[in-house]
């Protein structure tokens, strides 16, 4: 009899083809028993999979996730498949805790090489809530979040977030439903109200919207199809806003269909070491109602290459184009913005391109490219621990944002995008925050500055999720 705790398998590589037996010594603790048997290379059969602690979760949902466990032929495979099943179960966002117990089969119909796999699970509570207060620039707010995980027992999720501030109130309600047995294929509906203040444009925008989206993978790509209906209210942030911004004030209704395709082979989304990302997004507004019509295309490409001494060379290219359909000019809320610590460094936030009395109006076409060399910190302090969250980087960014006259041909467009290129270079320190965000402190030298651009010569601080 041997009891194996698969929990200790956590650090196993997910798809390591060869399992060196020397590894197993660390990972598998076989409790000494009277009748010890070496199961390692023996053929085994998983006879039963038990679940303990199931409440409202439906059987068919988990049956799909653990199906592979039955196909395991030897102990190592059983352990690996159980581990994978555990990961899959945790990903569903249904359980707080999953433990796997592998044991030999007992009972009358037990085969000599039969194994029982037991998943001990703890379900998340029906309702979880959170409460925060935030204090920002001249504003305090209270954020209330409610989550109903596993609403109907098939990994559906309902979340509600409400933020009540001294200036703005916003909320979001979303319902998420994955396909049973195929978590990547999912459907979600959102209802929201958000308010944004954009001081670089002296603009305030309040969006109230409904959106529905379907996510599905095709081969190595993941796709999102989305419909969004949003009521946008634009207004001036201050009395001193330029008249160009004043003219954009008022209500518009946008109804758009969009499609996003992503191929991501990077090892992680923040400070990746290898792999590439390609994201292509297209949005068509106006054909499904509303009073805004345009076609918007944009893409993002990122390539990472590992070099010597743990350094990584990362190159990225962004670009986009907005074509208004009909006689109406594009709205300031739909146009592109460029500049700032997350795109072309050395320039102030979104302060490149067309402007009126110091308020940036955005552009209908843009491109931006960046080249980064990430290296570990000099002398590598805190190596293997805290120090690994930091990187130094040297960068070269370039980009341009302008409006195109769509009467001219593509040759003229390219010429316009190629003239007056803004670029900058510099170096800085990057801090990785979890796996979602990063902070940067850079010394930047902006070049190719055009009149009207606002620069940030010298030290610039940046925080964000998406970086050029």
């Amino acid at each position, binding site marked *: 009899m041997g009891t194996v705790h698969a929990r200790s398998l956590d650090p196993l590589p997910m798809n390591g083809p060869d399992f060196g037996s020397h590894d197993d010594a660390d990972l598998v603790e076989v409790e000494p028993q009277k009748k010890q048997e070496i199961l390692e290379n023996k053929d085994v059969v998983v006879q039963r999979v038990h679940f303990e602690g199931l409440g409202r979760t439906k059987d068919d949902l988990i049956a799909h996730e653990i199906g592979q466990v039955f196909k395991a032929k030897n102990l190592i495979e059983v352990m690996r498949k159980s581990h994978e099943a555990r990961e899959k179960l945790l990903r569903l966002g249904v359980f707080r805790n999953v433990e796997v117990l592998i044991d030999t089969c007992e009972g009358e119909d037990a085969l000599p090489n039969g194994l029982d796999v037991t998943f001990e699970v703890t379900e998340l509570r029906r309702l979880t809530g959170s409460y925060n207060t935030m204090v920002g620039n001249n504003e305090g707010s209270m954020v209330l979040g409610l989550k109903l995980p596993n609403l109907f027992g098939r990994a559906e999720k309902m979340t509600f977030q409400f933020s009540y501030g001294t200036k703005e109130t916003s909320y979001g309600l979303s319902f998420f439903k994955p396909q049973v047995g195929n978590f990547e294929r999912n459907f979600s509906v959102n209802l929201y109200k958000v308010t944004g203040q954009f001081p670089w444009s002296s603009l305030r925008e309040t969006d109230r919207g409904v959106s529905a989206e379907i996510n599905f993978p095709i081969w190595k790509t993941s796709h999102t199809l989305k419909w969004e209906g949003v009521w946008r*209210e*634009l207004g001036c942030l201050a*009395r001193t806003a330029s008249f160009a911004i004043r003219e954009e004030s*008022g209500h518009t209704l946008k109804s758009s269909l969009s499609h996003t395709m992503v191929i991501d082979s990077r090892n992680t989304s923040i400070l990746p070491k290898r792999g590439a990302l390609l994201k292509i997004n297209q949005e068509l507004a106006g054909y499904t109602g*509303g009073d805004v019509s345009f076609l918007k295309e944009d893409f993002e490409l990122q390539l990472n290459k590992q070099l010597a001494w743990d350094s990584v060379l990362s190159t990225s290219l962004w670009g986009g184009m907005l074509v208004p359909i009909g006689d109406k000019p594009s709205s300031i809320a739909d146009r592109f913005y460029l500049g700032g610590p997350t795109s072309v460094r050395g320039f102030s936030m979104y302060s490149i391109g067309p402007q009126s009395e110091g308020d940036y109006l955005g552009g209908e076409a843009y491109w931006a490219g960046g080249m980064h060399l990430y290296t570990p910190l000099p002398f590598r302090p805190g190596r293997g621990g805290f120090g690994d969250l930091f990187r130094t980087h040297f960068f070269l960014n370039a980009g341009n944002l302008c409006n195109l006259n769509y009467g001219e041909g593509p040759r003229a467009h390219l010429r316009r995008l190629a003239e007056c290129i803004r670029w900058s270079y510099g170096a800085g320190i990057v801090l990785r925050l979890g796996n979602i965000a990063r902070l940067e402190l850079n010394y930047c030298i902006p070049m190719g500055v055009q009149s009207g651009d606002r620069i940030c010569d010298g030290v610039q601080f940046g925080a964000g999720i998406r970086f050029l």
Partner: protein
Amino acid sequence: MSLVTDAFVSQIAAVEPWPENAALYQPLKSEQVLLSDNASCLAVQAFLKMCNLPVQVVCRANAEYMSPSGKVPFIHVGNQVISELGPIVQFVKAKGHSLSDGLDEVQRAEMKAYMELVNNMLLTAELYIQWCDEATLEEITQPRYSFPYSWPLNYFLVFQRKWEIKRKMKAIGWATKTLEQVFEDVDQCCQALSQRLGTQPYFFNKQPTELDALVFGHLFTILTTQLTNDELQEKVKNYSNLIAFCRRIEQHYFEDHDSSISSSTKLSKGPTLP
């Protein structure tokens, strides 16, 4: 406007003369503008004409939201944006043009009192009829107010505005009034104005003041706007001196200048008095 902005505006304004490209923004004339907004826009137009300050009238569907105070009309002079008659009068005064300089303290106080009367009675009555009378709301206000917007935004915005006005009516105690009582109020207001005017050409004899512009804006709009019924018009028509007053300003300030002022300015005023 706060005292500081006031002081700032007057200082800035005094330096620069009235520019050629001054513009007055108002809602779309034929499809969108409502009775009360039209009255306010016309009052400001009349005031500027009385001051002999040229202004180009620009119609925009989002004029209400472009205005810093959320109310139409507003003027764009140089790089200044000023909305509503009161602040505009002050701004123009800072530029050295005033209609009420010739009045003494008592007259000025009287003028202010009558202007308050017009704003409190006529303007509120117009808002009441537009937003609280179901027939008018359905037949006129709703289609006109929601004209620039597509479904379902048109319903949201009408609902939002209606709710806002109803709340305001409740606050000033008009919510419980019936349409008849409102017409009665209009009648009393007109009676007061008629008595004050008497046989003079303008409220303060020979020279028009901002009160004349305001009264003209409201009465002319009421007289020339077709509503679901004629009752409101009839109330004003009972006072012949007020009709004569409207006709006098119309002829003097709007028709006489036809040759020199572009036809769009004339069109923007709307139909002429019968």
